């Protein structure tokens, strides 16, 4: 790498702008996006640079700190495969946008549109008449052995005659200043949601600069996306049901799937939400099957149908391919479109373009050579050190390998590998990408950049997103521009030639919208996740309440003589389902440590909080930003490592903080969720878990052979959050029957068992299929029976423990059994068909 640098023409910069950019000196070997060859700021960057100067570095830094917090709190993440910390890596965004002028962008768009059209036409040919093969434009060697060529889709004709609805093209600027294509993403392109989020963050951080630069808005592009999804529908084109299909939260861009679903207003689904009947796709809802017209998929095509594509995929929808053949569903992008991503085929694109359009390809790819051609192979073997080597067909997660810095021995190995099976390799010229300014610490430095342009089908042509996702390399030297391998992102500003269209999807303009009230149906999988979210969060709360009671007493100097401590510890160990009492039946502090901190303990706090977070992630599209912030806070409040060594009083403070977060979550659920099925399932989960916890607590504390000491009753009331009510009613006299009545039978106490049962009764009556039934369902029968029993219970005469069945202990035991019965019955009725299927194949030949 050369050390020549371009000095900035200081005449171009105001004093204050200079203080931001004064150290900026991009290397001269490649073009810089902001600084021209002459050292002056390029025309289309002038306004931005001047306004940033006026803002000043201090103010920019301050605003950017706020923006970063917004990114964190909104939970913008990107998952990195194979990295233990890879789940939910925070999104890296630079404050400085990448700027394009209107005329340059228009030229680029022209090339992008032509390219997208060629790719779509090539797909139509390869899955149809195969003229490209018959006329020897492309050799069969790049199609037939290509795993991206999905034979079950051959001959399928999409209703809208299109396979490529959305295209993303990775673009870099070459040393001569022209654009070239680094890669095409044709099957489930990612990046539109991140581009949008970047835009929102940057435009909020520097709104006045954004406004004065006349930046083209992104929203018009999303209008095109919505429009294309609607018109792709084979049925119900007026009001089609569109779903966004995600592989789930472990996917690298899951954040974007949830984000786009929410922004565009579509239901986020996983494969298990959908099913095929009579060649139509349906969504599994609590109330039954609902037809689906369009699947906007963010899942690789091989995974989409375990029956006809990859049999071991658990993410797919068996029968989807047949539904596509029957013309009953539109899949966007069409199944099989991943084929156009293969590097081997890319090498033939200029030929394909000439053949199909009779035009030269306006926006070329990096020069590439498919080694299956003898001439190309010879060239590649002779020029290996200057090239990048890629697998000819898409191999997941295998990037290009640079030959530049390899030893002579390594190069020989590669030559042998390539010569042994040349058709498997593609070589590409290494290109040096242009640079752009990036804020690194307190300085502005040059980083190599590439950006992803997005196109959406519109009529016979395509609309180009005016902007895109720009990414920069991790260091000044590196040419690797990838979120998977470090580096960061930038907003991309396309300056508007004319007035800026202020269209926004967030508030649709004057269109009459149909009024719809809560009561809409819910997918079984989402209901299942909400149910478990309710259970986990309540379970975590029960542990925290007990632990708080225990830690509070440990802080006290006289805890050795405390009579209630053993009781609380026992209740905690029951709650966490560990059975480690010593020979005296005592549970010690060590067990509490384990319950609070051991990550592997299934019912311990760590595992439960983890489950809260992952379950919440699964229904993230159903959550408001505020709710998500609380979930994020719960997750970060109490991650074990740093707390273990702290003093007891600090621990108490952390447990308090966690309680407040739980309360905030419960408050938002009560006050902000509409009373639909989603809320009901969340609350059902919570009520079932709270019933079980209360029964456990009473069983441990009120059913001993001797009446518990007053201190213990006090502690139980405190853990059950009912101490104030009790004191107000009965002053200070602590008696077991009164406590039992308040905690079990008092329907005005929101913590009591009877209260939970009454709420469950209300919920269950409103579930699909139960409203108009004459007979009570088994769940309703159990609830009615138990609630009546509680209402009739006389705690004054009921012995705590006795050999007969009529003691409190045995009543509580059977209540607990019934609560789990209710949970099982509800799951079986509403939730179990959310499970994935499995493949079986007959081995038929025995001869």
């Amino acid at each position, binding site marked *: 790498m050369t050390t020549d640098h371009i000095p900035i023409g200081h005449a171009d910069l105001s004093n204050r702008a200079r203080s931001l950019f004064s150290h900026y000196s991009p290397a001269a070997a490649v073009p810089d996006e902001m600084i021209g060859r002459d050292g002056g700021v390029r025309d289309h960057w002038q306004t931005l640079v001047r306004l940033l100067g006026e803002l000043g570095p201090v103010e920019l830094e301050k605003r950017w700190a706020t923006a970063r917090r917004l990114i964190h709190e909104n939970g913008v993440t990107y998952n990195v495969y194979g990295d233990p910390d890879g789940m939910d890596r925070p999104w890296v965004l630079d404050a400085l946008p990448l700027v394009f002028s209107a005329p340059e962008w228009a030229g680029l768009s022209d090339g992008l549109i032509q390219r997208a059209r060629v790719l779509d036409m090539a797909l139509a040919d390869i899955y149809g008449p*195969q003229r490209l*093969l*018959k*006329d*020897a434009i492309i050799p*069969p*060697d790049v199609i*037939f*052995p290509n795993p991206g060529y999905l*034979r*079950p889709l*051959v*001959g399928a004709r999409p209703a809208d005659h299109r396979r490529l609805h959305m295209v993303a093209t990775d673009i870099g600027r070459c040393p001569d200043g022209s654009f070239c294509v680094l890669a095409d993403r044709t099957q489930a392109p990612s990046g539109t949601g991140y581009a949008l989020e970047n835009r929102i963050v940057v435009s909020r951080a520097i709104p006045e600069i954004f406004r004065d630069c006349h930046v083209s808005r992104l929203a018009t592009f999303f209008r095109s996306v919505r429009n294309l999804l609607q018109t792709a529908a084979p049925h119900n084109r007026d009001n089609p049901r569109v779903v966004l299909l995600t592989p789930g939260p472990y996917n690298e861009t899951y954040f974007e799937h949830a984000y786009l679903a929410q922004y565009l207003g579509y239901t986020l689904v996983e494969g298990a939400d959908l*099913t*095929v*009947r*009579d*060649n139509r796709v349906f969504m599994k809802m609590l109330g039954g099957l609902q037809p689906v017209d369009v699947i906007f998929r963010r899942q690789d095509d091989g995974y989409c149908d*375990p*029956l*006809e594509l990859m*049999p071991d995929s658990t993410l797919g929808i*068996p*029968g989807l391919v*047949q539904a596509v*053949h*029957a013309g009953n569903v539109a899949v966007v992008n069409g199944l099989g479109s991943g084929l156009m991503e293969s590097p081997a085929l890319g090498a033939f694109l200029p030929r394909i373009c000439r053949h199909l359009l009779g035009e030269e390809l306006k926006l070329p790819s990096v020069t590439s050579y498919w080694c299956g051609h003898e001439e190309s192979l010879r060239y590649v073997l002779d020029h290996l050190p200057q090239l990048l080597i890629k697998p000819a067909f898409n191999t997941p997660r295998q990037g290009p390998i640079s030959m530049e810095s390899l030893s002579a021995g390594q190069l020989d190995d590669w030559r042998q590998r390539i010569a042994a099976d040349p058709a498997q390799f593609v070589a590409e010229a290494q290109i040096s990408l242009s640079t752009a300014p990036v804020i690194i610490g307190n300085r502005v430095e040059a980083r190599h950049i590439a950006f992803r342009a997005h196109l959406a089908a519109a009529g016979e042509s395509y609309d180009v997103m005016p902007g895109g996702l720009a990414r920069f390399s991790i260091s000044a030297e590196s040419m690797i521009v990838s979120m998977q391998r470090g580096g960061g992102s930038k907003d991309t500003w396309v300056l508007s030639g004319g007035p800026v269209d202020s269209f926004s999807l967030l508030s649709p303009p004057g269109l009459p919208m149909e009024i719809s009230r809560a009561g809409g149906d819910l997918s079984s999988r989402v209901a299942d996740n909400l149910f478990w979210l309710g259970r986990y969060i309540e379970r975590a709360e029960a542990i925290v309440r007990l632990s708080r009671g225990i830690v509070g007493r440990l802080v006290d100097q006289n805890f050795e003589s405390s009579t209630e401590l053993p009781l609380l510890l026992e209740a905690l160990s029951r709650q966490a389902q560990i059975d480690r009492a010593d020979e005296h039946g005592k549970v010690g502090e060590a067990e509490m440590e384990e319950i609070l901190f051991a990550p592997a303990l299934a019912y311990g706090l760590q595992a439960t909080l983890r489950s809260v977070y992952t379950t919440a992630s699964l229904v993230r599209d159903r959550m408001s930003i505020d709710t998500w912030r609380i979930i994020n806070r719960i997750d970060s409040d109490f991650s074990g490592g740093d707390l273990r060594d702290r003093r007891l009083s600090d621990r108490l403070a952390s447990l308090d903080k966690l309680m407040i977060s739980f309360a905030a979550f419960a408050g938002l659920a009560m006050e902000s969720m509409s009373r639909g099925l989603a809320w009901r399932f969340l609350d059902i989960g919570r009520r079932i878990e709270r019933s079980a916890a209360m029964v456990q607590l009473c069983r441990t504390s009120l059913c001993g052979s001797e009446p518990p000491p007053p201190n213990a009753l006090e502690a139980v009331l405190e853990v059950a959050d009912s101490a104030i009510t009790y004191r107000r009613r009965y002053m200070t006299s602590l008696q077991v029957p009164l406590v039992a009545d308040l905690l079990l039978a008092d329907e005005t106490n929101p913590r009591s068992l009877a209260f939970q049962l009454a709420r469950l009764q209300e919920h269950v009556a409103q579930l699909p299929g139960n409203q108009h039934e004459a007979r009570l369902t088994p769940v309703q029968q159990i609830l009615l029976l138990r609630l009546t029993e509680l209402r009739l219970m006389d705690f004054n005469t009921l012995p705590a423990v006795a050999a007969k069945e009529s003691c409190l202990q045995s009543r509580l035991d059977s209540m607990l059994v019934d609560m789990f019965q209710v949970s099982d019955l509800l799951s079986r009725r509403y939730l179990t*068909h959310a*499970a994935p*299927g*499995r*493949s*079986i*194949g*007959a*081995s*038929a*030949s*025995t*001869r």
Partner: protein
Amino acid sequence: MAVYCIRHLTHYRYQEPVTVCHNLAHLIPRDSPGHTWTQVELDITPNASRTTRLDCFGNRTTVFTIDEPHLELRVESRGVVDLAPPRISALFPTSPWESVVNLLRGKPDGEWLAAAEFRFRSPHVDWTEEIRGWALQSFPPGRPIAEAALDLAGRVYAQFRFVSGATNVSTQVAEVFERRTGVCQDFAHLAIAALRSLGLSARYVSGYLVTQPPPGGSRLIGADASHAWISLYVPEYGWMDIDPTNHLWPLEGHITVAWGRDFSDVSPLRGVILGGGKHEVTVGVDVLPADAEFNEPSEAP
């Protein structure tokens, strides 16, 4: 003129109810030269909604769904086929095998594109240098392709042992090559791998074989099973069927149902089920002369 009645029954029994199943079958015979089919039927119990379409190889692919809980699934295909005698009965002169390799690599022409589908690696057909070396022993320079291919099939027959149950659907060619044992499907995959390793086009054929009764004995009902063999592209002739398991040529009594690159393209029945627990499957095939009567459906594991 030989007319046969065919019955092919696949019977699944599950430990627990299957709530939904989606299936893909290649059981309705395709159109193929020398075969005239009548009375073709596919019975599915419990009742299923179904669709049959042609796949990219021209096979009839049936997709069906059962969405009522069931503990058993019975799929039975039946048909009557009038089988023409083989078109050729003696080895005919063919081109040197290298010229066929060059033709397949060269300019597009006639059957060329269809043949090109079958000269690459596929899910069950992979090869090593060792397999290629082994194949070359039957393909010395200039040897006519048909003669060389029959020699190769003869070597599979001579050097490999048929052992029922030695392998399963996912056994790879290299393993079969090393162990020298397998069933018809493995021998077909091996022969295809050997031929493709040389640059030739060969496809996998799935169907039935008429079992000849032992001299003086009566025809064994239920001893028939579904069978697999290969077909080689020979420019002068088109596609030439070869049975490496039995080393018969020309083939008589081979009834074609479907063909593809390998087993994965034409598996008779596969599915995705919800529920079911453990399952048992039995498959039985009867191929009888049209004048014979079916006894009770028989099932061989």
